[in-house]
């Protein structure tokens, strides 16, 4: 597990999501990246049940339960700005039992699917973010395997991102700044995906082709 940066690639003007993804993957292949299977990250939102809310007098907190095909035996449960729990996949079953406390938000499932590319020690995953039947945007994940400290290799990652994202290169992810020289972990990647999904959910009213 290396340092990972997750970002959103805006859909090119006059193009569909599908076309933009193809454009991007062609660029990667030109660079020399090799196709290496597919990937999938999904996220389901739960909110605290009304019955428990009333008695405690707290604002409802959202919990996100996520899966990542890179860690097929794990399940991630996150709160916004809160702790991240890494559990076995059985956790999904547990969530069904906890129906009285956490209720699944209707039609909240969001996921991104796409192709993995390997370029030297970099792992690039370009995915189409979908909510229900419709494509909502494009996710770009870049992992640099050899390094474990995010702040050490940000400049290097940035240079690589620029090489195929051009002007759409993202800024430094918030999780990179959190802990100055701590070892980067899978949870940090999931937090980035959660933030990306939340951003895309808010954009859902905006017409797809018109972003930027």
């Amino acid at each position, binding site marked *: 597990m290396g340092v990972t940066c997750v970002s959103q690639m805006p859909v090119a003007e006059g193009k569909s999501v599908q076309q933009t993804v193809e454009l991007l993957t062609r660029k990667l292949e030109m660079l020399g990246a090799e196709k290496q299977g597919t990937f999938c990250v999904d996220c389901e939102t739960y909110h605290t049940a009304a019955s428990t809310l009333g008695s405690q007098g707290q604002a409802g907190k959202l919990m996100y339960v996520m899966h990542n095909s890179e860690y097929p035996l794990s399940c991630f449960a996150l709160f916004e700005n809160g702790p991240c729990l890494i559990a076995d996949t059985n956790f999904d079953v547990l969530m069904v039992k906890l129906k009285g406390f956490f209720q699944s938000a209707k039609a909240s499932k969001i996921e991104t699917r796409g192709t993995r590319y390997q370029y030297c*020690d970099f792992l690039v995953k370009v995915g189409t973010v979908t909510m229900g039947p419709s494509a909502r945007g494009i996710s770009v994940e870049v992992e640099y395997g050899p*390094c474990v400290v995010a702040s050490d290799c940000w400049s290097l990652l940035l*240079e690589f991102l620029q090489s195929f994202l051009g002007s759409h290169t993202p800024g430094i992810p918030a999780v990179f700044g959190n802990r100055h020289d701590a*070892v980067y972990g899978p949870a940090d990647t999931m937090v980035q995906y959660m933030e990306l999904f939340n951003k895309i959910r808010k954009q859902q009213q905006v017409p797809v082709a018109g972003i930027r």
Partner: protein
Amino acid sequence: MALLPHLLMTMAHFILILFHTIPRWKSGEAQGLYVLFAVGQTQPLHQFRVSEPCLPSYRGSLPRTNYISQRPPGATSSASAACASGSRFGRARGGGGDMADVLSVGVNLEAFAQAISAIQALRSSVSRVFDCLKDGMRNKETLEGREKAFIAHFQDNLHSVNRDLNELERLSNLVGKPSENHPLHNSGLLSLDPVQDKTPLYSQLLQAYKWSNKLQYHAGLASGLLNQQSLKRSANQMGVSAKRRPKAQPTTLVLPPQYVDDVISRIDRMFPEMSIHLSRPNGTSAMLLVTLGKVLKVVVVMRSLFIDRTIVKGYHEDVYTEDGKLDIWSKSNYQVFQKVTDHATTALLHYQLPQMPDVVVRSFMTWLRSYVKLFQAPCQRCGKFLQDGLPPTWRDFRTLEAFHDTCRQ
């Protein structure tokens, strides 16, 4: 009976035990190292070496000892041939000086013969002491009488041990030192072994010695040349030109493990961001696990103080095999560390100073330490971080600056 504990104490100080390394003790065959010491004491009372006096170089200049005459008649000719080649060799090696040196160290053969008989006397008197103890008290009319007779007998025996020992000590001073600086030391004695007629061990030994001597000479010349260059190099790089050592020590592969430990722990303390863990899973050869910041880990296989092999891996990669041993064979999964491994191997060849292996290890570690910025330092030539997907993996041996593999001069 009250006397007995006192007696035992006295015994402890006087019983002498005689060791000899070669347990052949027939008449005249007495060679090896003798150590005499009192029971309960760690310091030997006396130590001396007895060697047979016919070394190749004595040929003709000293009377032959009876050992030669004991040999079967056919053996003498080959022995003298061996002796002859030995002396020829001696001359070729050191010139006149060595020869004179060897000849001047005489062995007083008469004293030698006396010393051998003194050893025999000492041995028998020591045996008598033990016999006396073994037999215990003789039957006498009174208990007191028994004790007295026993003590008197025991004392007599101890006195004779003491006397024989003193005599031996006196003689051992007269014997003189057998030539310690003979090129072949005691292996010269191999020429006297009758088995030699069947196995040409001794002549092979001489040949081997000749070769190794030549090799040493050439290696000395080569190291002199290499030395000059390396010193220049490390002086530029480390700024330690003032620290010239007075005299280079002879290069050796056999350094005590304690010394290696010391050198490594000193280096460990030198660099705070670098931690070195030393282990010896396979005998005396040390293996180091160097962890550099949170960047990389290096497995270093040492032979004495010479670095034999290094493997660079990622900080989060496994450096142990399934059975918990350091994995010295498998390479890193990442191209960047495979590249750094290649460069580290190049560095091993570059930092060579056979006379001062500890300086080599220190220079190598200093160079290795520059990789703490492996992902943070842009190339000093093209200014970029990446080239073909790899960061600048090369570090200049002198300036320690970062370069891409293809950007270095």
